[in-house]
């Protein structure tokens, strides 16, 4: 293998598993250490810079970082990265003074943003302080998009949304709530320098099976129903409720129904339990509230009597796998199942819809009605029009919308400075030694088995009695400290210097994870097998250094390194050193140009 170029920003970035997995590349271990130090405000600001909505995301993020967390590979449960983010938001002091100020001078460029969801708000947050005139339009009165209209209040209180959307709007962003844009052409005619489409994926899929029309009064499209609940238009539902679908929307529907009078609420899903789109913790939350999930049942017919829904008939299916391992649901050949009910919530998917964009406005759409959007620049076929969030590539989640928003802002900033937007800026990285004394590091390197701490919940009875009472209470500072201690500081990197190494083997012997091997060089496949512990996780790199006196190489498998620094403590010559790697994505502004 070739020696590893550890100065390439991507190399150590990949070692910080959580940050690598986070779409916005939030410097997770850095903020976790700040939480452990009780510096909640600093932890908040690191988050705010990266992901704009720490308080919101600390409650609702899809948390792609957690399955990626190193702790999963060495213990089992990841660090509660997401809920620690909430800790920063909950316990910070007033951070208003730390926010950027509205730009005193404008740069004369006007940006229109359609939709006030996380994608548009991120673009506005990045561009407004640079002097751009940002105008955000939303058909709804308040900013937040689906964070406000879809996510139930018992998961995400309005106060948190208000606070964090205001941090953005207070940057001198003009918000025109209650203003739906009906024509892209008309908007284009207003001569904005750039237009951002952050209008989301607002249409819920329907279910066209017999009885749908006749029983329509008691059959509701999940996301429409949820927004009506949010807007206080709906306050009750029948006692017996069936929720169709297995995703996040289904989970929010069933839990909301339990709070609005549903006593016998069940979720019915076509697929098996493990294949459901909902996250494991959402399924746990539903189970905790006494909501059963029935799997492998495909809705066949709505039963009704005199215009009133009485039940749903399901066909039983089973999963079959073809030669390529693809799953197909086929009839199980068992009798149909009928559940009686008073109301049905249909949560079987969400779609994009752009009724307000004329097809001859200069924006190309594909055969599925999706705009043609560049995956890197987020530019549409109209050079002034950019898409971000769910509007760009279909429904995803908040953190992806934020990540898109940053990229859109970079594109616009570069474009309006006459630059090629396809040239993307590199992230800013810093690598700093962490040694403070002979056995003293700037971080806590004593690593121990320590299982994940559970977030306290409101008791079921009081939680279910209100649609607004927040269920999760968040970690208290002591629990937060304990949970923060589980983080392995994957950003404190082992850095090897071959000229210093005397090949004494001390690091090899002390490494608890058998990460380090001195051996003859070879091709990667062969080398991976010959390490002290075979390096079978191909998603993790091997750090190779040459230039040793014996002609061997040092090969370190990054996979399960604990970042405990014992190698560096044991090395007699300082050939191993622990360096903190700090990476920040380059956002719009002079650094990106």
């Amino acid at each position, binding site marked *: 293998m070739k020696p590893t170029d550890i100065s390439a920003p991507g190399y150590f970035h990949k070692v910080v598993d959580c940050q690598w997995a986070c779409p916005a590349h939030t410097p997770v271990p850095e903020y976790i250490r700040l939480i452990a130090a009780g510096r909640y405000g600093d932890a908040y600001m690191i988050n705010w810079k990266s992901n704009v909505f720490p308080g919101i995301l600390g409650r609702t993020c899809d948390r792609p970082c957690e399955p990626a967390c190193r702790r999963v*590979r*060495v*213990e089992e449960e990841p660090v509660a990265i997401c809920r620690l983010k909430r800790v920063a938001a909950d316990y910070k002091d007033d951070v208003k003074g730390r926010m950027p100020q509205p730009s005193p001078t404008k740069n004369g460029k006007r940006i229109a943003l359609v939709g006030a969801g996380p994608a548009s708000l991120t673009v506005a947050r990045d561009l407004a302080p640079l002097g751009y005139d940002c105008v955000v339009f939303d058909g709804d009165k308040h900013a937040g998009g689906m964070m406000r209209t879809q996510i139930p209040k018992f998961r995400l209180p309005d106060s948190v949304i208000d606070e964090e959307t205001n941090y953005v709007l207070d940057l001198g962003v003009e918000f025109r709530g209650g203003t739906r844009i009906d024509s892209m052409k008309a908007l284009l005619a207003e001569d904005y320098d750039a237009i951002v489409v952050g209008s989301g994926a607002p249409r819920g899929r329907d279910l066209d099976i017999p009885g749908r029309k006749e029983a329509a009064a008691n059959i509701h499209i999940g996301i429409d129903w949820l927004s009506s609940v949010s807007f206080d238009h709906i306050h009750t539902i029948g006692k017996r409720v069936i929720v169709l679908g297995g995703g996040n929307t289904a989970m929010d529907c069933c839990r909301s129904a339990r709070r609005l009078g549903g006593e016998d609420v069940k979720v019915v899903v076509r697929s098996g339990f493990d294949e459901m789109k909902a996250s494991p913790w959402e399924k746990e939350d539903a189970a905790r509230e006494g909501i059963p999930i029935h799997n492998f049942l495909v809705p066949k017919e709505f039963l009704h009597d005199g215009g009133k829904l009485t039940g749903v008939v399901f066909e039983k299916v089973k999963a079959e796998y073809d030669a390529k391992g693809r799953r197909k649901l086929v009839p199980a050949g068992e009798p149909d199942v009928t559940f009686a009910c008073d109301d049905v919530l249909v949560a079987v998917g969400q779609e994009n819809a752009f009724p307000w964009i004329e097809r001859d406005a200069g924006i190309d759409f594909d055969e599925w009605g999706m705009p043609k959007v560049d995956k890197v620049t987020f530019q549409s076929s109209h050079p002034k029009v950019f898409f971000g969030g769910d509007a760009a590539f279909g429904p995803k989640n908040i953190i992806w919308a934020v990540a898109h928003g940053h990229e859109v802002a970079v594109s616009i900033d570069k474009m309006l400075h006459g630059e090629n937007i396809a040239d993307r800026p590199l992230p800013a990285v810093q690598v700093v030694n962490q040694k403070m004394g002979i*056995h003293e590091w700037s971080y806590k*390197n*004593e*690593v*121990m*088995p320590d299982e994940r701490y559970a977030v306290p919940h409101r008791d079921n009875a009081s939680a279910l009695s209100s649609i607004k009472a927040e269920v999760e209470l968040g970690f208290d500072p002591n629990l937060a400290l304990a949970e923060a201690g589980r983080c392995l500081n994957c950003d404190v990197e082992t850095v090897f210097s071959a000229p210093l190494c*005397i*090949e*004494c*083997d*001390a690091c*090899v*012997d*002390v490494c*608890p*994870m*058998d990460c380090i091997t001195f051996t003859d060089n070879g091709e990667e496949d062969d080398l991976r097998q010959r390490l002290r*512990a*075979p390096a*079978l996780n191909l998603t993790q790199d091997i750090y190779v250094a040459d230039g040793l*006196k*014996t002609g061997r190489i040092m090969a370190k498998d990054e996979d*399960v390194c*604990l970042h*405990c620094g*014992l190698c560096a*403590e*044991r*090395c*007699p*010559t300082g050939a191993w050193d622990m360096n903190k790697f700090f990476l920040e994505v380059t956002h719009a502004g002079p650094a990106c140009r």
Partner: protein
Amino acid sequence: MTYLAKPKFHHPSLPKNAIGFTRRDYEASTSTLCAGCGHDSISAAIIEAAFELSIEPHRVAKISGIGCSSKTPDYFLGASHGFNSVHGRMPSVLTGANLANRDLIYLGVSGDGDSASIGFGQFAHALRRGVNMVYIVENNGVYGLTKGQFSATADRGSKSKKGVFNTDNSIDLVSIALQLGATFVARSFSGDKSQLVPLIKAAIQHRGAAFIDVISPCIAFNNHAGSTKSLEYVRAHNEAVNALDVMIGRDPITVNYAPGKVVSVTQHDGTVLNLRKINDEYDPGDRLAAMNFLQKHAALGQIVTGLLYVDSEADDLHSNFNTVSTPLNQLDTAALCPGSVTLETINDSLR
């Protein structure tokens, strides 16, 4: 060195041996030796060997004298018996323990100061008596613990850290062990575990006095230019005569070395030692030739390593003394103390 205990975490694919232990289960408390000490590598090699042999920890007695080397039994096989004795007195304590309980595996750990100076007599007598043990000298050419004075194994002409040349002749423990009749004699290097681990395994399997001289650079006091016991010097002058493969039990043996290049030696317990020859003229079955070879190569400034001599038919002290086959702690009072009448009879027979 580090003050932190090694985390309990281990690699997910860490294998278990025949009795269900991982290598990590043979570790002990955190070493307090200097970072990079050769002795720590030897501890790691002992751990590896015990793991690979699936040794039950409670069947091992680690006995040592005084010195950095003699401290190391605290850093391996934490669940085994141990006795940290007096300076140079490991061999007599070990001999006594062995006589009392012949069933244990005796691991004598000593240093060059401990064995070649104050304990030189003890070293000699334990070997010549054929005590069934593994006697390891962690040889760094200095008194590490007392801050680096030359020991008796320091080569004449070797330079101290302060720049003083050693004017005394050195004691070569391997040559003396051969001369005194040790039945398993090897030399190795802390920096080469692929050589050392099989040697320790073979020595454990050997019945009789097994001696291993392990050159073990002292990182703090004897790893500079001019020292003949530095990592770099030993690497440059190492002359391995053979490479060892230990085949445990009676598994079918498949050796894939070039024919004629492998000598197989079957030890009394059925363990087969496959010795791949590196030096063609070397025969580890010939004590006299071995002694000659060592002297010749030492004169050339080479450090000969490998399995230098093995007598697979060796006897040990117990068979020489015709002692009872049961450990003393398993005999009852009547057997241990047959009473005054029996004593009288014995005394009478000697009058």
